[in-house]
């Protein structure tokens, strides 16, 4: 059953101008209402498609949650045990404890010294993070990559009559076309498969920056997309599977890139994932 909702609030959320105070409540409603979630996801995809079509950067706001990863292997009881739990018994503040606290306070260094030390520690940590992570920031989670691939698939591969900017079946020609468009080159996976044929590629918004969106087609004309986004030295990870409104997605990282295969045919997505994973470009 479709719940009715306030269009102004939903549009404000989609257009990233919902008041911060109203955001948690709306996000709670999003979690509860699948119809609202679907509608918002579609509007976001529409927005992203318009931005991509006119060469504008992707939205800075974190996209809505795609749902739980199918390979999530941390059981709920483990998470709850590791999370900080509020104490069941109130802390006893007896006289002795208060006296200990008073002694500790009197022996502590002055507040200005502590503040200075804190600033120095934060600066050191920031410097370490800058060196470790580079200008691109930490690796985005699979969900963010999958969300970007979902938007690209819906906008370009699923229905579009012009799914690619550069049409070719030759992976090497495509690699050459992509080379000047990325600081770190993207090598198009070359594999021979009767089931999937390369159509070409276009530039699409990724999770953090621009990405290459490759489109493959099977014999029946069903399209499968592959989003490849250069990342800052991501740790290699196994594919995690996502599902959203009939679109299956497999996201993984490796060889300095994030990869997402997307399509409505789950088996074709799995096939493309296997082919790309085993190709030299992914290593």
């Amino acid at each position, binding site marked *: 059953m479709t719940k009715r909702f306030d*269009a*102004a609030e939903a549009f404000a959320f989609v257009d990233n101008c919902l008041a911060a105070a109203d955001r948690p409540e709306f996000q709670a409603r999003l979690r509860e209402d699948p119809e609202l979630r679907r509608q918002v996801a579609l509007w976001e*995809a529409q*927005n992203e498609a318009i931005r991509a079509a*006119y*060469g504008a950067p992707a939205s800075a706001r974190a996209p809505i949650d795609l749902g739980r990863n199918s390979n999530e292997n941390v059981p709920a009881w483990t998470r709850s045990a590791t999370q900080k739990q509020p104490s069941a018994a109130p802390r006893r503040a007896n006289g002795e404890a208060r006296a200990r606290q008073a002694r500790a306070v009197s022996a502590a260094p002055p507040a200005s010294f502590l503040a200075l030390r804190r600033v120095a520690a934060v600066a050191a940590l920031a410097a370490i993070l800058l060196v470790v992570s580079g200008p691109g920031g930490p690796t985005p989670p699979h969900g963010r990559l999958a969300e970007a691939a979902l938007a690209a698939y819906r906008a370009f591969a699923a229905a579009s009559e012009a799914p690619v900017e550069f049409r070719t079946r030759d992976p090497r020609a495509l690699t050459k076309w992509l080379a000047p468009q990325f600081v770190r080159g993207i090598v198009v996976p070359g594999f021979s498969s009767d089931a999937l044929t390369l159509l070409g590629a276009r530039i699409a918004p990724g999770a953090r920056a621009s990405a290459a969106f490759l489109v493959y087609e099977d014999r029946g004309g069903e399209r499968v997309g592959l989003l490849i986004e250069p990342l800052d030295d991501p740790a290699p990870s196994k594919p995690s599977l996502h599902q959203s409104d009939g679109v299956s997605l497999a996201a993984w990282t490796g060889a300095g890139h994030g990869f997402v295969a997307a399509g409505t045919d789950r088996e074709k997505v799995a096939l493309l994932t296997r082919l790309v994973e085993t190709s030299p470009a992914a290593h």
Partner: protein
Amino acid sequence: MRRFGLALARDDRFVCDDASAAALVDKLFRQASLTVIDDVGGGVRSARVHAFGQFIRLYRRHVRGLAAEDGDGGWAEAPQPAGRANASVTSAVRDLPLELRETLLLVVLAGLSHTEAAEALDIPLTAVIDRLARARARIGAHMNAARGSAAQAPWPNAAHLRLVK
């Protein structure tokens, strides 16, 4: 802002190619800048909103002039697509009437908030929401028509939306 101007100006009716759109935008920018510099007050944000509003007013004046030359009263209406619609998002945006196109592009492409868009267009906030709903529904319908199967269409429509004032 230039990106917004190019997207707004390229409408496949009065301006049918990117080079003409770029020339028109540059011309309007020159006119808008002169006016905006005189009127800037408040913060940078409000100046930006003001500049968008100024550009839109100049663009409307330009389009109205072209329509008058053609003896066409419906200057703000988009041409009706002939035959099967093009499935690209840009063609869906170009098919929008001017009032819907400018509102949608202000919010989505220029990144203005709904309040700022209302200020730039000099219309109430509820009118912005209404225009966004109609624009999104039209784009959804355009894409569905282009796909030829509305039942499986992934594009949104606002048929079940309720506007709350």
